[in-house]
């Protein structure tokens, strides 16, 4: 069995290639991490819309902190939780730019809740990619506001106790109640069909911005196999059997 087929024989044409919006840098995510799929989907959307030269990304603090290295786009690295405020500043300074944030659940739904809610409520014309892996991945697996009931984390060693730590925060449902946002949707990437749906949602969230429709947020229910201490393939099961119980998929708000 050959390890790598480097040369493509005559007669073969490419049908799936690495997105052009991605740089040559290897992702710094763990093996099998959903962040990698989501990062690639964002790059695919940028390619498909042909907006690489006018897109500015805002990287979070979290496992996606190095996002600016993965893209061939201009990028700002934001303080933990402040990405939506930074994106607001960029977009207001230069409305011609296509501005997106990419944030984890600790970043967006804990420390950055206020910035997120108010950017959404202002109807800020930006695109937000929200990776809900129900944990603080980067800092080693502490409880996030989205951590599932009973789920073990390094700060809930006996499992998340609802009486003392509250409930998984459904930030997308909250945002969908507001008049400001144009598009709030929850997606997943655990199989090809869902990857394709997530891809369409991300595309739509960017297209909304191009059309001036306003704040669009795509939440993606993901898993962090490293901190769940499970093989990546089981991350699929985790999302399907556990996470989706609390975070059902689908569009929560669509303003035409």
């Amino acid at each position, binding site marked *: 069995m050959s390890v790598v087929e480097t040369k493509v024989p005559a007669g073969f044409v490419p049908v799936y290639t690495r997105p052009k919006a991605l740089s040559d840098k290897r992702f710094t995510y763990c093996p099998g991490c959903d962040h990698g799929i989501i990062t690639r989907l964002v790059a695919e959307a940028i390619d498909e819309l042909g907006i690489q030269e006018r897109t*500015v990304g805002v990287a979070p603090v979290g496992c996606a902190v190095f996002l600016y290295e993965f893209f061939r786009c201009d*990028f700002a690295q934001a303080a933990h939780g402040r990405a939506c*405020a930074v994106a607001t500043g960029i977009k207001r300074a230069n409305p011609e730019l296509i501005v997106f944030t990419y944030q984890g659940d600790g970043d967006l739904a804990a420390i950055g809740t*206020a*910035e997120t809610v108010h950017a959404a409520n*202002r109807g800020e014309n930006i695109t937000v990619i929200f990776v809900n892996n129900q944990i603080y991945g980067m800092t080693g697996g502490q409880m996030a506001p989205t951590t599932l009931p009973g789920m073990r984390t390094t700060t809930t060693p006996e499992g998340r106790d609802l009486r003392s730590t509250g409930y998984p925060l459904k930030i997308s449902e909250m945002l969908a109640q507001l008049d400001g946002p144009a598009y709030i949707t929850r997606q997943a990437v655990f199989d090809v069909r869902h990857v394709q749906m997530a891809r369409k949602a991300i595309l739509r969230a960017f297209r909304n911005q191009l059309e001036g429709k306003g704040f669009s947020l795509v939440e993606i229910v993901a898993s962090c196999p490293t901190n769940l201490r499970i093989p990546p393939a089981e991350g699929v099961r985790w999302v399907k059997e556990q996470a989706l119980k609390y975070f059902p998929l689908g569009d929560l708000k669509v303003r035409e």
Partner: protein
Amino acid sequence: MKVLMRGNEAMAEAAIRAGCRTYFGYPITPQNEILEYMAAHLPAVGGACVQAESEVAAINMCYGAAAAGVRTLTSSSSPGISLKMEGISYLAGARLPVVIINVMRAGPGLGNIAPAQGDYFQATKGGGHGDYRLIVLAPSTVQEAAELVMLAFELADRYRVPAMILADGMLGQMMEPVELPPPIPPERIPPKPWALTGAKGRPPNVVSSFDLDPHRFREILRGLWDVYRQIQRDEVRWEEYQTEDAELVLVAYGTMGRICRTVVRRARREGLRVGLFRPITLWPFPSEPLRRLSARVPVFLTVELSAGQMWEDVRLSVDGRAQTPFYGELGGVVPTPEEILNEVKKYVRG
């Protein structure tokens, strides 16, 4: 042509004339007029004013706007500036030129809205985390406030560092005739090839304060400190008033500097040889001129609307060559010229 303007409004108008096209702020007394002025006047010049949900959000909006290459301003008063400190540290780390106005009020805590100077340490010694400094400019009149705002934008851009105007409630609220400087033509604002304008025909630009490699990060910070040293060399500003023959020099900045000027005049009328040394840049602090002065002046009386913060820099500069007493007020109480003159008389006789 002179116009009568409130300090806060003059600073806001000066910012617009300096080419500031984005403003982000959150209401807090005694600086609300800046936000209100920007809300009324920025859109007319094609700019954007956002009333943010907090000072934290506002400073991070500035981070974004400055990263996009546009001159940007935020303003607040003491409790709000505390909230901005995280963002200011990131601005310093990411080398973003933003102008921040602090119209100081009395603290700690919620304190009150009376003028005070208790944020000197916070402004000049870092305030947020990490190894950085701000350029800190302290106006003492409405005219000077307008001019220093324009200068702050220029210096922030030239050195790619955030700059702060450290004013206080008295200056912010005071109405004075002011000759506003003419607007800066857009072509005089230096280009920003590092800004996030879309990676078209060039490699991507990244604005970040993050580097996991200690050695590489050290090199970045060494570069930053080279810039700080250049600022310390070239941008020190201060004013001396009747120091030539002085037996006692008052050291005071901002509103306190203004009151001390009155004290000098009254003291001179009584035959007391009193002068004033007024730092205009609080960082870089005018240590060298103060040190020179200390070769022939026996007493430096530092006067502040605080428990004695700039006083430490005065003592470091004078370094034991002269007496360095302190007189200050707390809690938003502003000492009268008479009270200060009585203090002066403890050290000099006519």
